[in-house]
């Protein structure tokens, strides 16, 4: 039974198709990697799932409902949370306030002590609980990423979209980050992650979808997909050049 079903989704900007006729699905509790060279349309796809962009064509079914084109706040309340490629925190709010927000406006609409307790437990999970009264603007880049994840968790999503959340971490932090994401799947959260770090993809994602120039070129068990010639040509070929 899949939680997310994408079928025939296309997004055109002017004459250019950033995503064309893309279909794949994510099963309950699954953690799927979405790979592809720069500009292949991964973030555009994430933006369409979260409601930031409206697809030109196609269906995005979340738990059976077509959510394509719905406003982002409705999609968030339906149970999809995300992080952003360029980390986005709420700089003038404290850490705990940052994390209270999705709880307060999510499905359970927590407020008061209950919301604070919930937010504190989310901060605890990413290791920021001790600093919960700090202003978010005063955090380092890495801690801002942690905060962003805590905020996404606070929404208690069924589906979590991670857009290069592991980018920019040092090796020790990367191991910590991988462990953190793995722990989420134990809670039954399904995850779709855009990621460039192959080590993380291999460690976390049993299944991988690969995009190139807006189209799906591979979909299957990660090890198999990564050894397919067209994937190597499109994706790893580029990485070898870089």
């Amino acid at each position, binding site marked *: 039974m899949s939680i997310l079903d994408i079928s025939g989704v296309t997004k055109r900007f002017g004459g250019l198709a950033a995503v064309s006729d893309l279909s794949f699905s994510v099963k309950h509790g699954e953690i799927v990697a979405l790979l592809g060279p720069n500009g292949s349309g991964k973030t555009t796809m994430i933006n369409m799932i*979260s*409601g*930031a962009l409206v697809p030109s064509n196609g269906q995005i079914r979340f738990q059976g409902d077509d959510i394509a084109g719905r*406003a*982002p*706040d409705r999609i*968030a*309340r339906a149970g999809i*949370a*995300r992080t*952003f490629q360029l980390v*986005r*925190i*709420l*700089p*003038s*709010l404290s850490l705990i*306030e940052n994390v*209270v*927000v*999705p709880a*307060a*406006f*999510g499905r359970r*609409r927590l*407020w008061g002590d209950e919301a604070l307790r919930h937010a504190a437990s989310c901060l605890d999970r990413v290791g920021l609980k001790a600093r919960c009264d700090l202003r978010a603007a005063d955090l380092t880049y890495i801690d801002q990423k942690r905060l962003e994840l805590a*905020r996404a968790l606070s*929404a208690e999503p069924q589906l979590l979209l991670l857009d290069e959340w592991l980018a920019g971490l040092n090796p020790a932090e990367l191991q910590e980050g991988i462990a953190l994401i793995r722990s989420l799947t134990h809670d039954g959260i399904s995850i779709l992650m855009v990621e460039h770090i192959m080590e993380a993809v291999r460690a976390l994602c049993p299944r991988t979808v690969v995009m190139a120039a807006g189209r799906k070129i591979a979909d299957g068990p990660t090890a198999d997909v990564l050894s397919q010639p067209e994937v190597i040509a499109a994706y790893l070929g580029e990485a070898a050049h870089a």
Partner: protein
Amino acid sequence: MRQLLPFYALLGLAGLAPLWLGDYGAGLLLGMTSAAILATAWAMFSGPTRYVSLATVAFYGIGAYVVAALAESQPWPVVLLAAAGCGGLVALVVGLSTLRLAGIYFVIFSFGLAELIRQLLTWYEVNVTGTLGRYIFTEFQPRDLLWQLLVLLAVTLTLSVWIHRSRLGLALRVIGDDETVAAHAGINLARSKLTLFVISSVLISLTGAIQSPRWVYIEPSIVFNPTVSFTAVIMALLGGANRIWGPILGAVPLYLAFEFLSAHFPDHFSILLGLLFILVVFALPNGVLAALERLRLRKGAGV
């Protein structure tokens, strides 16, 4: 709400003031109270969202005109309700058409709104009623109006504190920081902004309504004077538009300063006002309260 108790007491005392201040003093206090409400109501919406509303006087004038049209035929509470209703309705229409879009559209719309309503009213009065001006006759003494305004100020502040602590207040602060994050956290952007804009506009309309009997004679160019919008913004900015007490703190001294300036330098008033405004934007972008806080922090760090 316990923090407001001393403030309610202060307002109560201000209500006693006309007993020994005389009419001039009561008038001054009345103007100051009205300025405090306008600044607080403006900041209620524009402070957290950073959507600069330049339309304060549009709603203020609507309130005054409703009184001019209804005061003779209807009981006062009905008149006030109608003023609140009209202001709220206009805010709803303006908000529905602009608040879904980027902030700049709202600013532009609000910039010309007062002028638009002024022109429409002038057209209506000249072509339909046949006279430009209207008289407002009520039995209210200045002190009666002062008492009503003091109650309105208490209501405004209570609302402001309540909103600040409510989900709505949090939603607006998030929107002010990052609209994209707000939407992805489940906040309905348009509805949150609209709700607050309507509340703020209703309060402003009521202020215009209650203060209008002071004029006796009104016409569109008198009640839709852009200076009102201007002073509300500068008062709120001076004190700090993101603080509950900021706008009042800005309103009291600036109201007195404006009274003094307009009495002594009537020809230069608008220039001085503009210069003062620019000065505030440059020197105290977050208001006096924030500046004081920073100063205290710095001193604390130095010790």
